């Protein structure tokens, strides 16, 4: 009689990569990049090596140039993101919770949503000038739509049973909104906030490239015009780091606010 052991063919679903894998992957990318840009076939003008970018970055940080530009960008993004997400959550809750608001607001929301917000930038500059207000406004707009639509979908997805339970225990409309609708929609709200983080960076750089003296977008455009690719790449790397940190921050807040999500 032969004997064969039954093996778990589902085991790959539980595979976990070791914690060093991401670091090795990043380092490999950097090493390959370094090697390619130092090779005789590629000009450093087109692809500066990471080591040169880091050195330039340190220089620019020491001179304060990086700092002023970074602060200008961060200020704009913080203002636009905060404004857009607060208004987005409020409008999304209203649309999801009130039948009148839904009927009146939905057609407007869904007809404006597909417009790429960059297309509105010239118009907004025309209306609001080329100062800070127009830059913050375009970021606000870009953040508002994904947040509002996700919040709305989150409210609509709430199991009516939860509302029934709340009402059966004599919760009024405000109580239902605060204790059922808002917490129930939180996972979707955070999905919207994460989407909006990417959009806000995109619009920030676009706005700064059109008209700004300071800001990472302006810095990239400036060094691009001067063909100073290494310094340009410093700006790109800063944007990438900014994006990563932004997502990590939202993720950390999510973990705090939604401890019940397994």
């Amino acid at each position: 009689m032969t004997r064969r052991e039954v093996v778990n063919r589902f085991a790959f679903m539980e595979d976990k990569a070791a914690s060093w894998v991401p670091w090795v992957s990043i380092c490999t990318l950097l090493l390959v990049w370094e090697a390619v840009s130092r090779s005789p076939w590629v000009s450093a003008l087109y692809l500066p090596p990471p080591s040169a970018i880091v050195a330039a970055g340190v220089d620019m940080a020491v001179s304060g140039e990086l700092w002023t530009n970074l602060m200008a960008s961060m200020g704009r993004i913080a203002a636009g993101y905060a404004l857009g997400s607060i208004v987005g959550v409020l409008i999304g809750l209203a649309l999801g919770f009130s039948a009148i608001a839904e009927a009146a607001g939905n057609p407007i929301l869904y007809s404006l949503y597909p417009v790429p917000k960059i297309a509105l930038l010239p118009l907004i500059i025309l209306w609001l000038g080329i100062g800070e207000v127009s830059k913050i406004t375009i970021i606000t707009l870009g953040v508002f739509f994904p947040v509002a639509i996700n919040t709305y979908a989150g409210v609509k997805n709430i199991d009516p049973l939860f509302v029934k339970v709340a009402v059966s225990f004599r919760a009024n409309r405000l109580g239902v909104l605060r204790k059922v609708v808002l917490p129930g929609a939180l996972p979707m709200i955070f999905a919207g906030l994460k989407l909006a983080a990417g959009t806000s960076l995109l619009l920030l750089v676009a706005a700064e490239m059109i008209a700004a003296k300071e800001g990472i977008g302006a810095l990239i455009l400036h060094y691009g015009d001067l063909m100073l690719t290494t310094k340009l790449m410093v700006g790109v790397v800063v944007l990438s780091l900014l994006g990563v940190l932004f997502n990590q921050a939202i993720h950390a807040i999510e973990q705090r606010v939604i401890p019940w999500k397994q």
Partner: protein
Amino acid sequence: MQILIDGVSKSYMDSKQGAVLALDKISLTISENEFVVLVGPSGCGKSTLLNIVGGLLSPSGGHVFVEGLPEERDPAIGVVFQDVGLFPWRTVADNIAFGLEELGVAQPEKQARLARYIKMVGLEGFEHAYPHQLSGGMRQRAGIARALSIQPDLLLMDEPFSALDAQTRTLMQEELLRIWQATRVTTLYVTHNIQEAVYLADRVVVLSRRPGRIASILPIELPKFSRDKGENLPAFNRYAEEIWNLIRDDAQQALLEGADG
């Protein structure tokens, strides 16, 4: 205090068949401290009636009255839903406290009641767990504690144990009787399980189907405990048999319609 259900009808609009009469002139009185069980085949309108009595659905005709409340106020009604409906974003303790919050019960009293009802349903040690960390039976017990903690004038339960396995279900039924003995709260309990109905009820109300009407009302004249054991068993089985005969045809009909789609 008693509940008077007076000629309650309910018709639902159906896209295919037009209006469907789910309940047809139901009249029933639930006395103070009485445990009434509503039993009937699937789709006979049990949940509909329970929701109307709980003020969660408007009847198409008729009224529900609460008579003889000690003071001028709305009755406190505790509902245990079939799917429990614990809020996933609240811990067990916060879920049970929900009704108390809405009643505006002061903090020390709230804590005292929480402790008492958590103990009553045997969930000590799980106060800070989230619903997804509980078993099905524990969730049901949390739902029962939530309904009891507001010290309701009327307790409504819609098939609270139907999702549980047979053993857990038996244990929960015993538990419910024990809790009920301690509180004696006026209760309307919905089930499609005949044994459960005979096991728990002071009176069993049998509903027929299409339209939902009261087919019969049976007072269960057995001691409240150990009904399905020893000398009580023959009478227990007679009651069950009697109810089964009342709903057999309806249940078969429901099955056929279900098969048709």
